[in-house]
């Protein structure tokens, strides 16, 4: 019996010590620890949630439909070529319904099905075939576009320079991004969310319409201009804009371009994008390099279009439209424009990291400033200390020496909870702090249950030692039952909650589990220790 008590006492001592070692890095004391300690002992501590340290929580939806659309368009274009090569006269059109091919004959049908088995024929009436991508293929495209988007986002964030970002897929088309401690949330969102589809297209300057267009419009008037000129512009052309900032006045205007719709080249052949400074005007620009295939293509394009203007377009906006002076070999090009240094850097990042396979939409954006987090921690710590003092005082007042033992369990409880959280590297959130504080209030419940039992036993005339033993025995099952039920709610909260709520579930769950340990082993050991020394005549309870 005596030995048993000693072992339990040692067990408690070890867990308490471990908790202190694990929790130490979360306290300011850690800074003044000797070097060897910092190196060899746990040094991570508790991670603070976004709501406590400030930062950005974003949920993006990858619009996979768009990627499906682009694929269908590409297939339509390729089918047109294939049929032409076979000498089959056919019209191939991609619209909202799918890919329409007319006329409908067996030769065409065979050619389509041989080349693109992923197409499903859904209608063949009216002398035309209507094809659509198979459901399996549509799902595959959506899934892989979300995967690719995840990879691209990860690349961009790495290059943007955020320490400890969390990026993961939440469902088939949702991506959660958490950036703790980000100082410029707006810029970060732009870098992540830019589709970064880089295209090279020729301007249609020879078209008489080009001369009729105004040189520039005010921001906001783009739609109006497109509506006005819409019927006049040829189908193979479109109107695009370039954002121009006047250096002296800072005024923003939109330069108007008539651009041929055909894409000559896209950014997927790019290998490098770097920010350089134009020494003449001291302006940043982005220089890009192509891979060998890209370099060859770029050389062909420039050779065939000397003296014409080539528009460099990112996500539908023109960045610059230089005149091609000569054939450009070697695979290097420049994107100039009115950039600030940050804008040029961000542009280089998104170009390097590659284009998103589909545009993304922000579903949820939570930004927490660093000062709110600081205030929250201070308030939480204060509430915790006051709550603990109140409970400790109440227990001593009501249960005397036994209350003090319960308080020992309570302090042990808080210590182990913090240590467990630190060792698991769990994330502490604001509701999590509430969880810790509530755990303080509930921690003494097990002891209250036992103490009340002991009092009953003493009233029934039992000796203090017998009262302690049977009090523990009888309260045991009740304690287990009451803890399990709380664990059920914690588990549910963990399963269904996100972010801060999950943090709350973790502290609540851990708190309950640790409470079982301290209540059943912690206080019992102290009582046994007292009882084993000498025969206690009267229990202070």
């Amino acid at each position: 019996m005596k030995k048993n008590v000693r072992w339990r006492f040692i067990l408690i001592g070890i867990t308490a010590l471990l908790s202190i070692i694990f929790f130490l890095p979360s306290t300011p004391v850690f800074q003044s620890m000797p070097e060897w300690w910092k190196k060899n002992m746990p040094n991570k501590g508790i991670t603070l949630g976004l709501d406590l340290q400030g930062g950005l929580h974003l949920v993006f939806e990858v619009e996979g439909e768009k990627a499906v659309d682009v694929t269908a368009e590409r297939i339509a274009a390729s089918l047109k070529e294939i049929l032409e090569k076979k000498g089959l006269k056919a019209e191939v059109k991609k619209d909202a319904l799918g890919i329409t091919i007319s006329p409908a004959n067996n030769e065409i049908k065979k050619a389509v099905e041989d080349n693109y088995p992923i197409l499903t024929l859904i209608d063949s009436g009216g002398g035309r075939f209507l094809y659509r991508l198979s459901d399996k293929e549509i799902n595959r495209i959506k899934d892989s576009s979300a995967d690719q988007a995840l990879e691209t986002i990860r690349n961009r964030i790495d290059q943007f320079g955020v320490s400890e970002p969390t990026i993961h897929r939440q469902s088939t088309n949702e991506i959660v991004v958490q950036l703790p401690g980000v100082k410029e949330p707006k810029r970060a969102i732009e870098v992540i969310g830019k589709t970064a589809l880089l295209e090279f297209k020729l301007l249609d300057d020879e078209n008489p319409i080009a001369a009729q267009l105004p040189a520039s419009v005010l921001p906001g008037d783009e739609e109006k201009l497109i509506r006005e000129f819409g019927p006049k512009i040829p189908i193979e052309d479109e109107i695009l804009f370039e954002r121009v900032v006047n250096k002296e006045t800072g005024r923003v205007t939109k330069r108007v371009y008539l651009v041929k719709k055909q894409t000559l080249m896209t950014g997927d052949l790019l290998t490098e994008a770097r920010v350089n400074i134009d020494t003449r005007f001291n302006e940043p620009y982005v220089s890009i390099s192509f891979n060998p295939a890209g370099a060859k293509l770029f050389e062909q394009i420039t050779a065939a279009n000397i003296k014409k203007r080539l528009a460099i377009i990112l996500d539908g906006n023109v960045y610059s439209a230089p005149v091609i002076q000569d054939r450009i070999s070697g695979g290097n090009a420049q994107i100039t424009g009115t950039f600030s240094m940050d804008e040029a850097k961000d542009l280089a990042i998104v170009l390097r990291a590659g284009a998103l396979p589909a545009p993304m939409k922000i579903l949820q954006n939570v930004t927490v400033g660093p000062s709110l987090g600081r205030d929250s921690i201070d308030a939480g710590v204060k509430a915790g200390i006051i709550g603990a003092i109140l409970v400790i005082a109440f227990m001593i007042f009501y249960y005397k020496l036994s209350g003090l033992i319960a308080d020992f369990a309570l302090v042990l409880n808080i210590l182990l909870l913090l240590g467990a959280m630190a060792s698991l590297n769990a994330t502490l959130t604001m509701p999590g702090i509430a969880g810790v504080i509530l755990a303080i209030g509930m921690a003494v419940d097990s002891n209250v249950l036992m103490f009340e039992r002991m009092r009953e036993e003493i009233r029934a005339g039992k000796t203090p030692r017998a009262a302690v033993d049977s009090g523990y025995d009888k309260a045991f099952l009740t304690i287990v039952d009451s803890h399990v039920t709380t664990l059920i709610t914690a588990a549910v909260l963990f399963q269904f909650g996100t972010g801060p709520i999950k943090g709350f579930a973790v502290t609540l769950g851990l708190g309950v589990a640790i409470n079982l340990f301290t209540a059943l082993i912690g206080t019992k050991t102290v009582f046994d220790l007292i009882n084993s020394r000498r025969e206690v005549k009267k229990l202070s309870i």
Partner: protein
Amino acid sequence: MIELIRNTKIDFMGKRFYAFGLTGVISILGLIAVIQVARGTANLGIDFAGGTAVQVKFEKNVPLHDIRIALDEGGLSDFDLQDLPTENKILIRVKKGEETLGGFSEKIISILSQRFLNNKPVVDSTTEIGPKVGAKLRKDALLATIVAIIGILIYVGWRFQFRFGVGATIATFHDVLAVLGLFYIMGREINLILVSALLTIAGYSLTDTVVVFDRIRENLKLRQRESVEVVMNSSINEVLSRTIITSTTVLLTSIALFFFGGEVLHDFSLAMIMGVIIGTYSSIFVASPIVLIWGKRPFAKK
């Protein structure tokens, strides 16, 4: 020995019909709140309704009126203002789920920083939630509550008897409904933090109920010749002091949280305070009486 309560012989079961009256009123109130939440007519937080919330901190105190005028003139409509005068903080909420996010918060911040040039606002936090996420969070919260209740029903049903499980579940459900109903009547915001408070209350209230049930079960075995009603009454009386002491300690910490825990946890701790009180009531006046009247079959000796 300091004792608050000693050898009480209160006839709790005898008062069950009054209790059922009160419980009925509370439950109906809670159900109305649930319906209003489902219809979207309650004061839903933006995590459920979708929209934008911006919290700004000023150097000096700014009357809400001035902010309202500034935002009105800036072309915003349909916004809610809430202030924390002690900390010079203002919460602005626009409950309009936009398809594309980002517009409102930027607009609010630029309007305010232009308007209050010598009392510069600092952005504490912005939250933008699209309508889709709002609907999803609402669904998840409902699902979480249902799953938790089923889990409790199964566990208590397994550990005790099915009728105890029913009693515990109804009592727990009653507490969740009561706090939700009170929040609804007080016009307080119903949001995700409240849902986690409600589930915590469910856990707490259940703990309370289970302690009472444990004693009832124990006494039913020992005192088989007495009527169930008498055994229940004396069991509740026996654990009454424990019930009150534990409620007191949890109340103490909830109150500390309410007064010192900061703005984020204000509503959470308020809900906890209500929940502890209601949970204590329900474990005495709701759970056991339901077990008592549930079916006339004799209690098996489990």
